[in-house]
């Protein structure tokens, strides 16, 4: 049975977690990112969409470079701690206990992850309530965790929970629950449901303004 998705997170387009890094005046800025994808093969281009309310965007705009660090399955604790960090802490890498190295252009890259990329920004524009960057990979450095699996968005589901969910889904109980629920309360649209989770963004969303049409 197909059931309506009522938030953008239900679409499952967010798949793996990365940590975005940029050099700040007093340390290394870090931002957890699940909105990354490749957008070109030759040369390799990548795209990210961080929230411009965070200081990392102005640092990237100023430097013209950013670091993209793909996290490993075993690094859940670090990824989760990124949620609770004070937004304006001057050295988030130090706060998280992350070791970094700097490229020739001063871009900080994490030493412990699957791989680190240094990316040169080619285009940037505000897209809804996020800011989209397109950049070319100029440094690609595999790290010690290169043989590990990627860190899935939201972390790995525990085996017992997965088994329970499988039983509920395949038995039809999940479908029945949704039918009953939606009979009494029609599902929200994806825009309405997402808005409930990002109320502050709703009033501050900027118009979509890509560089070209």
């Amino acid at each position, binding site marked *: 049975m197909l059931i309506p998705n009522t938030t953008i997170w239900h679409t499952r387009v967010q798949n793996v977690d990365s940590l975005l890094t940029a050099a700040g005046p007093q340390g290394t800025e870090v931002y957890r990112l699940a909105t990354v994808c490749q957008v070109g093969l030759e040369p390799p281009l990548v795209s990210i969409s961080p929230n411009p309310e965070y200081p990392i965007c102005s640092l990237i705009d100023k430097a013209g470079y950013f670091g993209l660090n793909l996290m490993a399955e075993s690094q859940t604790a670090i990824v989760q701690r990124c949620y609770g960090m004070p937004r304006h802490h001057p050295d988030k890498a130090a706060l998280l206990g992350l070791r970094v190295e700097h490229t020739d252009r001063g871009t900080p890259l994490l030493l412990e992850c699957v791989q680190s990329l240094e990316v040169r920004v080619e285009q940037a524009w505000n897209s809804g309530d996020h800011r989209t960057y397109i950049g070319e990979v100029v440094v690609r450095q*595999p790290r010690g965790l290169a043989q590990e699996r990627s860190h899935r968005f939201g972390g790995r589901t525990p085996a017992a929970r997965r088994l329970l969910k499988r039983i509920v889904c395949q038995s039809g109980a999940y479908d029945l629950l949704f039918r009953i629920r939606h009979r009494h309360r029609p599902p929200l649209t994806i825009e309405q449901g997402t808005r409930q989770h990002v109320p502050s963004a709703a009033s501050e969303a900027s118009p979509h303004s890509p560089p070209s049409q």
Partner: protein
Amino acid sequence: MGLPTIVSPYLATAVLDGGVGLLTSAARGRINVMTASFFAESSHLPVLLRVAVAPGTLTHELVSESGWFGLSVLCKGQEEWALGCGSGSGREIPKFDRWGIDYDLTSNGVPLLRDALTTSECRVVARVPLKDHTLFVGEIVASFTQTRRSFRDPLLVSELRTYVGAPMMTAPC
């Protein structure tokens, strides 16, 4: 039906790990599905995602013409669809039929898959030409989860590589 023996350049040379999906499109009575791994969320509000498509593909032509596309996220167990729809052109192969992929057309003419992990209908709100791809930014106007598959994790590029025995691309540059 055998799987293609040629590994897509996307699988062979991708520098990032990420989800694998099927991009669907239709225009002027033509319909197509192709594998996509160059996609991500762009914005919460409005609800936007972006997907990069190579010019010259039938999908590029159909999305450009219709202004709509569907993006269906695949899960583990759907590797054959990912590999099958990622090789060969929709101009030569009726891929929905060849790979037995069921779909329904929305009122906007977008094919949405019945049996992917999730399937979303998107209206193109911007297109950005890049070096060897075009980035289509789409607003999600409707999206669905297949409950029979919802306990599964999305299929990743790295898992597809493992499935076909391709090496991981971890060489420094």
